[in-house]
């Protein structure tokens, strides 16, 4: 047996008190002003920010806004600034932090209220702009055997398909602060994903049209804030670098 499992068994022996500071603001309430509210609660073993925030809503302030759906680190709903760093609140254990915690909404996205931001809207715009779907003229005959694919390739595509559109990379990106239209690591990763997929018949010229500029792959300064904060640990750095090389090639050919 170990510390935590023992902890689970114990009945609240010497539980830690934690303080959670939350940046509050509701743009829909006339005359509301940003403020920081502090909530003090008793830490429980295995407590995540999902548990803590719901505890606050249930026992302290029923108006507190935040978004959780899967509460299992799968759906990408709950990203926020946790002690200043973008991350998924549902899979952050309070025990891994100092007893005073600061929470703020993810910057750059439309604020709905308190910790709730509208990442979904932003991602929808991105997907529409980059046309993140399989482009093909081929009709599929669903009665026949499926097209074959090399097992390794399928796994490689899946590795990039794992992005959960949480927006952490966007919030952690220096370029976006200056360039509103920048597609972010999430966008470049999506292009890398479709580029890899033989079912999508677009070629590099097509991708160049989409990301061959300063709002795309040439806007990225490879400062790598994104990879550090990606909760899915996607290989953003190497994929962006590779994509940039490919797009440079297209660009040079165009000049010829």
């Amino acid at each position, binding site marked *: *047996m*170990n510390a935590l*499992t023992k902890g*689970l*068994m114990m009945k609240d022996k010497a539980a830690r008190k934690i303080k959670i500071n939350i940046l509050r603001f*509701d743009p*829909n*309430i006339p005359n509301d002003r940003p403020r920081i509210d502090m909530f003090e609660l008793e830490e*429980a*073993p*295995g407590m*995540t920010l999902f*548990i803590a925030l719901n505890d606050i*809503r249930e026992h302290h*302030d*029923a*108006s507190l*806004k935040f*978004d*959780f*759906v*899967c*509460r*299992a*680190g*799968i*759906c*990408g*709903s709950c990203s926020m600034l946790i002690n200043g760093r973008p991350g998924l609140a549902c899979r952050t*254990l309070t*025990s891994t932090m100092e007893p005073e915690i600061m929470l703020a909404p993810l910057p750059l996205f439309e604020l*709905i209220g308190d910790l*709730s931001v509208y990442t*979904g*809207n932003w*991602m*929808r715009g991105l*997907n*529409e702009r980059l046309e993140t*779907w*399989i482009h*093909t003229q*081929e009709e599929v005959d*669903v*009665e*026949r*055997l*499926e*097209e*074959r*694919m*090399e*097992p390794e390739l*399928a*796994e490689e*595509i*899946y590795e990039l*398909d794992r992005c*959960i559109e949480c927006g952490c990379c966007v919030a952690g990106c220096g370029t976006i602060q200056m360039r509103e239209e920048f597609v972010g690591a999430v966008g470049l990763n999506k292009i890398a994903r479709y580029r890899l*997929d033989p079912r999508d018949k677009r070629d590099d010229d097509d991708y160049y049209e989409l990301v061959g500029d300063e709002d795309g792959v040439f806007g990225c300064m490879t400062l790598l804030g994104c990879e550090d904060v990606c909760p899915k640990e996607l290989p953003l750095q190497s994929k962006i670098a590779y994509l940039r090389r490919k797009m440079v090639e297209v660009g040079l050919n165009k000049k010829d």
Partner: protein
Amino acid sequence: MKVTYTDVLVIGGGLAGLRTATGVKERGHDVILLTLVPPKRSHSAAAQGGMQASLGNSVMGRGDNEDVHFEDTIKGSDWGADQKVARMFVNTAPKAIRELAAWGVPWNRVKKGGRQAIINAEKVTITEEEDAHGLITARDFGGTKKWRTCYTSDGTGHSMLYAVDNKVHEQGIEVRERMEAIALIHENDRCYGAVVRNLMTGELVAYIAKATTIATGGYGRIYSVSTNAVICQGTGQAIALETGVATLGNMEAIQFHPTAIVPVGILTTEGCRGDGGVLRDVDGYRFMPDYEPEKKELASRDVVSRRMTEHMRKGKGVPSRYGDHLWLDITILGRKHIEKNLREVKEICENFLGIDPAEEWIPVRPTQHYSMGGIRTDHRGESQTLKGLYSVGEAACWDLHGFNRLGGNSVSETVVAGMLVSEYISDFCESEESAINVSTSVIEAALKCEQDKLDRLINNKDGEDTYVLRRAMEKIMMEKVGIFRNGKDLKEAVDELEQLIFRSHNIEVTRSKSLAANPALVNAYRTQMMLKVALTVAYGALLRTESRGAHSREDFPERNDKEWLNRTIMRWKDPDMTMPTVSYEDIEVEEMELPPGFRGYGKDMTIHHPKTEERQAMVDTMRLQTEEEGLDRIEVQRTLMPYSELLPEKYQGRNERLDERFDDER
């Protein structure tokens, strides 16, 4: 008054809703999809295990076909499923997965040659055939004869959901996020749309449509602990119920999964036990062999869940602040195995428990997992009583799962149902019947009624605290309508829930009075709805005096086909009543392709239906005869239980397999 018109309104942006929307759009109809959260955040994303489709590519799945998948599904359902629906489903599942492959899902593929696998805790080598190389592979799942569960590593639902949502983008379908349907609009037994609340601004809008589809998922959150996402609250079932016209089917059929972690209820895969992990109690003792000497930890889901509960009731649970639990011990598998084969379990343990499962035991307990019941529809997905209302996916009960769902059949069902039901909806929209004849006064009244309810919640004084009612409901469901059920507890549960419903009329939204984005208000009206749903579950369970599939009555341990080979149908005739009305719909033995038999767990205690024997004899004779005549398996099936004309024409065809190539082999 704000009103929006469209052809088809789809409520719900999970796999089922999205695939329905693409289907009707393809047929040229306008569609608006409403969802609480961006579609890609729907609960469908959480399905990790896989999707069942009888492709038969992997060597462990060779010989698989619709017949085997059908038999597994019916047995799994403990003969509660609609056999024609199950046939429609198994014939469409291979088409669904092939379509998804074309839409971009990176399904794992067969790799020719040998590879290591662990079966029953033993290392074996599986050798894949050359001709299958590059086709979609499958893994093993509980309750299936063949390896049939197709997957994308540990993120099947995620990849499926993204592919279908991207298709929705491509088609330019209008998706409206953070919108909640809070009531249906109907007149003269005909559904015309819904009253919808904007969760950001609080505004109410009427959406009027020829056809309305509910694809809102399950109702797991009426229980205090559930593997479901926090938005799986059964509001879709509730708004159907509140029409007083539409019906719900088999609401008491609830599945529990044995190993979700404590406290948050996140699932750890069956693979932990499949690979040799064991369950231990407060003394560190491995107790499963005492209960199930043969299958031990690897008995079926419902059996293991029941044994664990039994053991905890004997005082052998591990007490914790979050209630009793047991231990899942996978340390015996070794670090190498865990890091390679159970990566996702390791991550869950690290992120949510802060433990290393190679060193430490995982706190687990059986947890609510899946809702077999839902909005009762016919095989076309349409309500049997409210015309123009359709339902698909986990929200619905067209009845593929009966009293127990097989793992992997659910995500498969969502897409198949979307494919089929969108065709029926389109047919309906193209018929004269679909004309919108709703009077403005009805729309106005529906909007006003909902606005009044919300105002009342906000303005009420000295009323009830939502959280108190909510927690009471969750506790009742967990303790009295859980894995084991008995008459006494269920009676108490029904009485107590009825009391809570009564009290819920007097909820007061405290501390947060905004009519706009206001979580307290949302919680208030949803709790009112959830209570009704909870009561249908408890009441159905109380009345059903037998044990079938996941519904397990201690006081009636036998499956009683003689009296209970039927579906529970609930209706809430009058909004002021505190109890639903109940009726039953017989499942006809005479029409079954697979007459009721023994499911194969524990002792056979079935009380048989008087007509079972006769039907079995008839099926046997017909099968013999047709086989002697030299008919192939599909023609044999057709004589036993014809169904294919029920399918939309475009989906009636056969499915090609390596072992069943079409003549013009490519």
